[in-house]
């Protein structure tokens, strides 16, 4: 009997693990006014302290988000002593360029992961306006599909607040970006949480 209960528990856990994070999404008409009001519009030029934990390793430093006069955006990560570790450019025309990456981080998977993280944080996927909308558990998901993944900005049903951003495949939630503060363009803090492997980036705004 005990063995049967354990087996059922294991099966349940496995089934839960296999269930899609987006299975319950119900398509709804897009509320264009809400989508336009809540759509992430990037982050104004700011410095943040950055704490990165990835598969048991911890590193910290400073992260600069900079809006350039040509409408491109730069994300620069340095250590506390000032040495630049990486410098990413998100061009106004959608072209991405890793302008500088130290040898220790110069791996395709690392660059691609961080590119997607920072693009989501900057709201770049939402610059195209052909959103679809779904409802799930008192939330509305506005999503755009890019290749095999979808980026979502998620609001409450009253369209009163932007709750978080997500990047996911058809079944799996991959990354969540949540912000702290009242002005989405000038967040006091951001947390980028990965769900498919153990990685979290915590940013706290520097008051200079």
């Amino acid at each position: 009997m005990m063995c049967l209960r354990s087996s059922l528990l294991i099966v349940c856990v496995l089934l839960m693990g296999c269930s899609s994070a987006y299975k319950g999404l119900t398509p709804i008409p897009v509320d264009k006014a809400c989508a336009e009001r809540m759509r992430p519009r990037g982050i104004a030029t700011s410095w943040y302290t950055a704490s990165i934990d990835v598969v048991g390793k911890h590193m910290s430093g400073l992260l600069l988000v900079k809006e350039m006069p040509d409408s491109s955006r730069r994300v620069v990560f340095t250590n506390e002593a000032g040495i630049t570790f990486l410098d990413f450019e998100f061009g106004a025309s959608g072209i991405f360029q890793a302008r500088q990456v130290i040898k220790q981080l110069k791996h395709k998977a690392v660059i691609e992961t961080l590119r997607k993280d920072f693009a989501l944080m900057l709201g770049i996927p939402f610059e195209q306006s052909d959103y679809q909308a779904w409802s799930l558990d008192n939330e509305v998901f506005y999503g755009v599909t890019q290749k095999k993944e979808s980026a979502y900005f998620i609001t409450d049903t009253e369209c009163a607040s932007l709750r978080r951003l997500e990047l996911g495949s058809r079944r799996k939630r991959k990354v969540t970006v949540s912000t702290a503060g009242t002005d989405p363009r000038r967040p006091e803090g951001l947390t980028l949480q990965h769900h498919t492997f153990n990685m979290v980036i915590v940013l706290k705004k520097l008051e200079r």
Partner: protein
Amino acid sequence: MRNTSNTSQGSIGRICRTAVLCIFMALPGYTQVQYNGYKPVADLPAFRKAFAIESAKVQTISSDFTQEKELTALTEKITSYGKFWFKRSNRVRIDYTKPFVYRMVMNGDKMLVRDEQKENRINVRSNKLFQQVNRIMIDCIQGTILESKDFTTRVFENDKSYLLEMTPVGKGLRDFFQTIVLTVEKKDYSVRSIEMNEPAGDKTVIAFTNKILNAAVADDVFAL
């Protein structure tokens, strides 16, 4: 006819000279930075000797510091402040206090890094890069940088200070630094500033102020 030939040979000569000059100027490392108000130290061996002797007299340093990181292409600058301690030999502590909190303690082969979230103890022997950075910092402060095989050094002076321009030899360090420029006080051979110039043109300058030399600094300051 002879005149034409001479003129043409002269033109070719000029073109060749210009081409050779252009090729040399294009070679990395050929262009050397000039430092306003400084002239090369005439007697380098004498300077090396004096630098080794005088800086060895500095047993401890307590100091404030201001660090300015300049991202040239982005026209961005961030200034941070903190406190610095050195105790001969091989002990350094750097506390950033504003606008963020961060501590780095180097004590022999051991290193402690504490940021706002976590504390990490590192044996620098296990990481060549940490080992090199640790060594450079210690060598700069305790006046043994001229003996380092990691850099080639040019030395300049003005009335009040020496300027040591250090160019990394190995590729590992060259990835991070184009040059490190140390300014050293003539009056006591203590370091006034450290300027780290990165290959992409960004730079970080750490300037030391309110320096107190050879006052008692407890060993606990460098506890790991």
